[in-house]
């Protein structure tokens, strides 16, 4: 309040009324260009003309003192960039030569900064245009509060503190909006109901136990018992009849789009203290089923079950591969990404040292450089993979040695660092289908053991079984001493302890039997190609030893069968055992940020973070949970109202529609950060419909840098910092063999309003929102003693400088200390940054003894291992080094929440279906074209439209169609057509504000796409983000029609016929169905 008063006093002095002030400054770019801004340039030119400066001196952009290193975020590749700053303005961006994403090999860290300043390395056009995003005239700089209906585009700029107060306290927040006069909104204070960590723990434990009850009666009894035991705290639950919904705290839902390390940790610090189970990312709109199939592949056998699977994936070590089959991956346009992957392959492609096959219905840029293009039908990737696997198995082209290794000891003896379950025995169920792995105790071969983990906790260990020469042998998969190699093809009947017969097969036998369900000709027919193509590709793939890869991305993942497509494709990599090998499949590797890795790291975040309550209860998207174990299963049975996600998380398409369905419970507040689900998701219009539902989403606040295509529906928008103004720990991607930690840091000043949080001045930011909410709610772990007594967490740098210090000191050796000259350059190159962003003394105090190392790292935009240290002999240095599931027991044990059927432990081709397993026959009738989408290197989904360099170069997107289809439909290039489908017969976006945006675009006729398929480029067709007029404080801000150009046809993508308010989904892996819809083009 003090702060508010101060502002007011200042305004009164200046004679500027609050209203004038707000109108002038709510948009960052609205201030007219002051004449004084040209002075700098004029001064320079005058000096050149007067002969004071030579031409060479005048090239200010080559000077180290005008150069800052950070990380791009115009797409998630996150290439290292070098930002050239003149007079405080980022005027040019190039590649950071210290960062291996832009130079191969990159400069070693020890290389001089003056040398690096003059060596620009390669980044893509989005990176080149990045500063246009920072200087977007439509950026907001003050908090905007909705002054009309959701989505109406009427706003009032309000003080930051007022917005925080209203969100925390709730009340009649929108009484000035017609229809909402008496709508009472619950604030976070009310939602933050349960605070007692002990109660959290007790209730959490009891809920976990309740979920394990087998019968409805037992469950009811457990609920009754729970209610008695927790009588004093039942008012803090969402629904005492369903304790598994968890506390009211879960009614605060936080969701995000593009967020990286650092910011992720910052948010977690808040949400963990708040105790909500509802924190959800966006993974499934990108390539979720790739991540979650890989998670399933990476589950480790611990004790007697599978756990610790990682949400990650593998990619090819493309610089050493000799053959790569790229499936639905276009690394020249996207795919993490053009700048790092292209220079590693183009010369070798030209020289014929690398051969590639591209599976894609579209003749992508990558396909144009390929030795073979295979235009498979969308969604048939697993059929191709199954066919290839069949050929490889039947022609004995697999690596039998690799596959035979049943445990770590065997793998190590064979110089392998990974191993799989090809030789493990799997039990068959009554129908002869593979189910659980055989435990040695099942057949009385070896008893269970009680073992102790590294913390001394006891657990039960069960031996598994492989067959050796027809004789069952027990083994421990993680045993490092006793090597067990098993028979690969086993079908047998063993005798259980009780005398019953147990039918078993080996993992590889299960694969063989699975892929033999169809002939190669049948698989080829599904793919719409010739059988010999599958055979030839399978032969090629198995002709290069370990230096061959199947590298995949969105293409196979974004279908209703995505999880199985990915798993089936990875099986090919397992057949040649290429993991961790030079030229094979590799993992990402990063320097640690949270200080939990080595003793030398000064800030162990585990130790400087207060213990938080352990959130419990179902999330609004029902992830990490089995439907059958919930308290609603017994009443509802199959099919469930919506899906449950025992194997996947961050299921983006589920968040908002689940809120609208109040399934499994109603929520009270939604906070979104850097995301555009309405625009990016298939059937995004259903997300809009859900967002305007005031009853089901009573409070929606957002962090964004403009009034975006989703945040235009928010109640409050907090201006965020552009990526050139903020911190983040970018991390890496699995195609990068070098261990890295690129660090995003502020390189220019933010236009945002300066506010005071915990007594500290700072521009409004994402962090400032969390800090201010924490201050108001009194959350521990924030404030003057946030990191411990006298150790404040009151601003972003308190958090991130500590992380940088941890990065600098991770590993065997820390980085070098910056010498005096470098420290001076560090300060000088940041001379344009205000104290509320950069203060060398403050940073020194935060970093403590590590300051000189922090400088060394920040002066280079992160920490990067050398290229030489990234390989060891024939293998990569940064290894996966663990077991991989060919057969997925954990997956097989989960059930489909709609049909009650078990998921498949061995992946195979599954046709495209809706939630209830119905093929989309009806909605395809009369719709003759199969719609897919694509990226162009100049456009990321929703955020690049603000950058006119890119729009100008890309031009208006269109509907790309094959010549034969165009001819059949009487269309030619340039014709305007509308895209319609069975679930959007009108062919438009209902923006729910009285306006509709028709899905009309221009036809582009080509030979470079499979007939019957059309594709549309992502990134255009906006209805906000500066594209249309907005009214702020009664003043109309005119939109820029260039941002509304083009077409986004996501609203034509099928709505699932059971869910009714969401696109079609991959029930297992979470991915949205992006490439399954059939549409029709109607001439306009």
């Amino acid at each position, binding site marked *: 309040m003090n702060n508010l008063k101060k502002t007011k006093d200042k305004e009164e002095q200046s004679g500027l009324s609050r209203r004038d002030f707000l109108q002038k400054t709510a948009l960052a770019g609205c201030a007219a260009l002051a004449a004084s801004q040209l002075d700098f340039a004029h001064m320079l030119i005058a000096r050149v003309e007067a002969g004071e400066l030579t031409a060479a001196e005048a090239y200010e952009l080559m000077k180290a003192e005008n150069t800052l290193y950070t990380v791009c975020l115009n797409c998630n590749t996150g290439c290292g960039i070098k930002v050239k700053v003149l007079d405080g303005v980022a005027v040019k961006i190039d590649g950071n030569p210290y960062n291996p994403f832009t130079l191969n090999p*990159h400069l070693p860290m020890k290389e001089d900064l003056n040398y690096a300043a003059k*060596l620009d390395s390669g980044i893509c056009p989005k990176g080149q245009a990045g500063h246009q995003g920072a200087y977007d005239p439509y950026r907001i700089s003050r908090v905007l509060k909705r002054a009309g209906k959701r989505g109406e585009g009427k706003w009032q700029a309000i003080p930051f503190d007022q917005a925080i107060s209203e969100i925390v306290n709730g009340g009649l927040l929108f009484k000035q909006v017609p229809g909402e006069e008496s709508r009472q909104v619950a604030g976070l204070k009310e939602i933050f109901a349960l605070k007692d960590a002990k109660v959290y723990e007790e209730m959490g434990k009891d809920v976990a136990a309740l979920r394990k009850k087998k019968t409805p009666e037992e469950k009811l009894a457990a609920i009754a018992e729970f209610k008695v035991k927790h009588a004093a705290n039942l008012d803090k639950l969402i629904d005492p009849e369903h304790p598994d919904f968890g506390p009211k705290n879960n009614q605060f839902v936080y969701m995000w789009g593009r967020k990286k390390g650092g910011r992720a940790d910052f948010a977690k610090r808040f949400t963990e203290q708040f105790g909500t189970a509802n924190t959800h990312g966006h993974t499934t709109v990108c390539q979720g089923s790739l991540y979650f199939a890989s998670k399933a592949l990476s589950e480790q056998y611990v004790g007697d079950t599978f756990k610790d699977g990682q949400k990650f994936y593998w990619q090819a070590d493309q610089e050493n591969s000799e053959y790569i089959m790229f499936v639905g991956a276009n690394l020249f346009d996207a795919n993490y990404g053009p700048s790092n992957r292209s220079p590693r392959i183009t010369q070798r492609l030209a020289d014929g040292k690398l051969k590639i096959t591209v599976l894609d219905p579209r003749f992508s840029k990558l396909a144009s450089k390929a030795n073979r293009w295979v235009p498979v039908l969308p969604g048939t990737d697993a059929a191709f993979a199954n066919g290839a696997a069949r050929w490889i198995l039947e022609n004995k082209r697999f690596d039998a040695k690799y596959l035979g290794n049943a445990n770590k000891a065997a793998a190590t003896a064979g110089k392998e660092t990974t191993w799989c379950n090809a030789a493990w025995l799997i039990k068959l169920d009554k129908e002869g289908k593979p189910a659980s792995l055989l435990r040695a105790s099942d057949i009385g071969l070896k008893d269970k053991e009680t073992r102790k983990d590294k913390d001394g906790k006891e657990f039960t260990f069960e031996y598994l079984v492989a067959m050796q020469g027809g004789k069952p042998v027990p083994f421990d998969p993680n045993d490092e001493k006793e090597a067990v190699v098993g028979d690969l093809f086993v079908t047998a009947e063993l005798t259980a302890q009780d005398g019953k017969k147990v039918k078993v097969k080996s993992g590889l036998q299960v694969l063989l039997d699975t892929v033999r369900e169809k002939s190669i000709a049948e698989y080829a027919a599904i793919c719409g190609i010739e059988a010999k193509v599958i055979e030839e590709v399978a032969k090629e793939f198995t002709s290069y030893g370990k230096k061959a890869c199947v590298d995949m991305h969105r293409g196979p993942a974004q279908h209703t069968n995505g999880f199985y497509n990915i798993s089936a494709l990875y099986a090919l990599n397992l057949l040649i055992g290429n993991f961790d090998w030079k030229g094979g499949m590799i993992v990402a590797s990063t320097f640690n940020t949270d200080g939990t890795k080595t003793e030398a790291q000064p800030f162990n975040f585990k130790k400087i973070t207060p213990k938080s309550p352990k959130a419990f209860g179902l999330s609004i998207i029902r992830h990490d949970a089995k439907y059958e174990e919930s308290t609603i299963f017994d009443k509802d049975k199959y099919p469930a109202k919506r899906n449950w996600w025992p194997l996947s998380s961050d299921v983006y398409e589920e968040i908002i529609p689940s809120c609208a369905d109040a399934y499994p419970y109603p929520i009270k507040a939604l906070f979104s950060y850097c995301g555009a689900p309405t625009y990016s998701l298939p059937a995004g219009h259903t997300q809009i419909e859900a967002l305007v539902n005031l009853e089901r989403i009573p409070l929606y606040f957002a962090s964004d840098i403009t009034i975006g295509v989703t945040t235009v529906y928010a109640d409050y928008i907090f201006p965020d910092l552009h990526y050139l103004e903020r911190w983040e720990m970018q991390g890496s991607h699995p195609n990068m063999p070098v261990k890295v930690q690129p660090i995003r840091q502020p390189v220019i000043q933010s236009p945002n309003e300066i506010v005071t949080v915990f007594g500290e001045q700072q521009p409004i930011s994402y962090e400032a929102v969390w800090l201010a909410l924490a201050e108001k709610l009194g959350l521990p772990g924030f404030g003057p003693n946030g990191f411990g007594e006298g150790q404040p967490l009151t601003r972003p740098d308190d958090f991130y400088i500590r992380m940088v210090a941890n990065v600098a000191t991770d590993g065997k050796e820390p980085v070098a200390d910056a010498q005096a000259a470098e420290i001076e350059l560090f300060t000088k190159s940041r001379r344009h940054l205000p104290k509320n962003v950069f203060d060398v003394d403050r940073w020194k105090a935060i970093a403590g003894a590590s300051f000189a190392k922090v400088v060394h790292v920040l002066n280079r935009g992160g920490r990067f291992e050398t290229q030489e240290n990234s390989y060891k002999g024939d293998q990569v240095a940064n290894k996966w080094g663990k077991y991989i599931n060919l057969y997925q027991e954990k997956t097989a044990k989960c059930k489909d929440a709609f049909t009650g059927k078990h998921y498949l432990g061995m992946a195979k081709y599954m046709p495209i279906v809706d939630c209830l397993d119905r093929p989309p026959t009806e909605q395809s009738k009369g719709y003759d074209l199969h719609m897919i989408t694509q990226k162009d290197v100049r456009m990321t989904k929703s955020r690049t439209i603000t950058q006119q360099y890119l729009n100008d170069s890309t031009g208006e997107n269109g509907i790309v169609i094959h010549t*034969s289809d165009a001819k059949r439909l009487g269309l030619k290039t340039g014709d305007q057509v509308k895209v319609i489908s069975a679930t959007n017969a009108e062919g438009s976006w209902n923006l729910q504000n009285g306006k509709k945006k028709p899905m009309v675009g221009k036809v582009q006729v080509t030979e470079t796409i499979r007939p019957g398929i059309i594709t549309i480029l992502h990134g255009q067709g906006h209805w906000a983000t500066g594209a249309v007029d907005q009214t702020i404080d009664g003043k109309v801000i005119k939109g820029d029609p260039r941002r509304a150009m083009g077409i986004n046809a996501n609203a034509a993508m099928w709505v699932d016929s059971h869910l009714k308010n969401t696109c079609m989904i991959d029930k297992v892996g979470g991915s949205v169905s992006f490439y399954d819809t059939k549409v029709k083009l109607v001439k306009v």
Partner: protein
Amino acid sequence: MNDILVTMHEELAQALQRKPDERRWAMLIDLRKCVGCHACTIACVSENKLPPKMHYRPVYEYEQGKYPKVSRTFLPRPCMQCDKPPCVDACPVKGEATWKETKGIGAGTVPIDYAKCIGCGKCVPACPYGARTMDEGKFHSEGTPAIQKYETMPSFEYGKQWPRSGKNQPIGNARKCHFCVHRLANGMLPQCITTCVGRAGYFGDENDPKSLIAQVKKANKVQILKAGKGTAPRVYYVSNDKLETLYR
């Protein structure tokens, strides 16, 4: 093995120590390696503060064949810095506004002196490659709430500073690619070369037989654009396509 960017960067330092008349700046673009990313186009726009719709170095895209036997070719087109430049002949300010440079760092290029250029536009149609465009003084952020400062900050073309506002040069002038002579002067490669993610671009002194560009030129069959025009370009291409049939 160095990244070719580092190799060429180091070669440039050596080349700059040679006399202008011993040196022959040339560019080579290996289309087999061009991935059609347009980074060169945008980097050049940003470096040289080009207004909307002006591209010193567009990348043309070509499709050939019938499904499924198709091909795509990406062809970046900088100024050819012709040894026989028709644009120079077309200029009424004979030899002063635009000429074939023989002196200094930019020897071999075809520069424009913005102060001498009268903005008549006659050079624009004279170029067979369409490499020249008139600067009409537009801004990318025009039509939005405010013109942004980064657009008015100076470009450094020809080793001078050109703040962009009002009727300041080069507004009203013809403009074109100059091999980033302001960067060469400072030991930096042209912007289109440094940001080429496919590493398709080569630049250097082709008179030095050890230079990468000379070696690549020697090892491959090179083509020039519109050979029939007799312009003697200094930009060479390596391609699996016959460029004379693609680029007419």
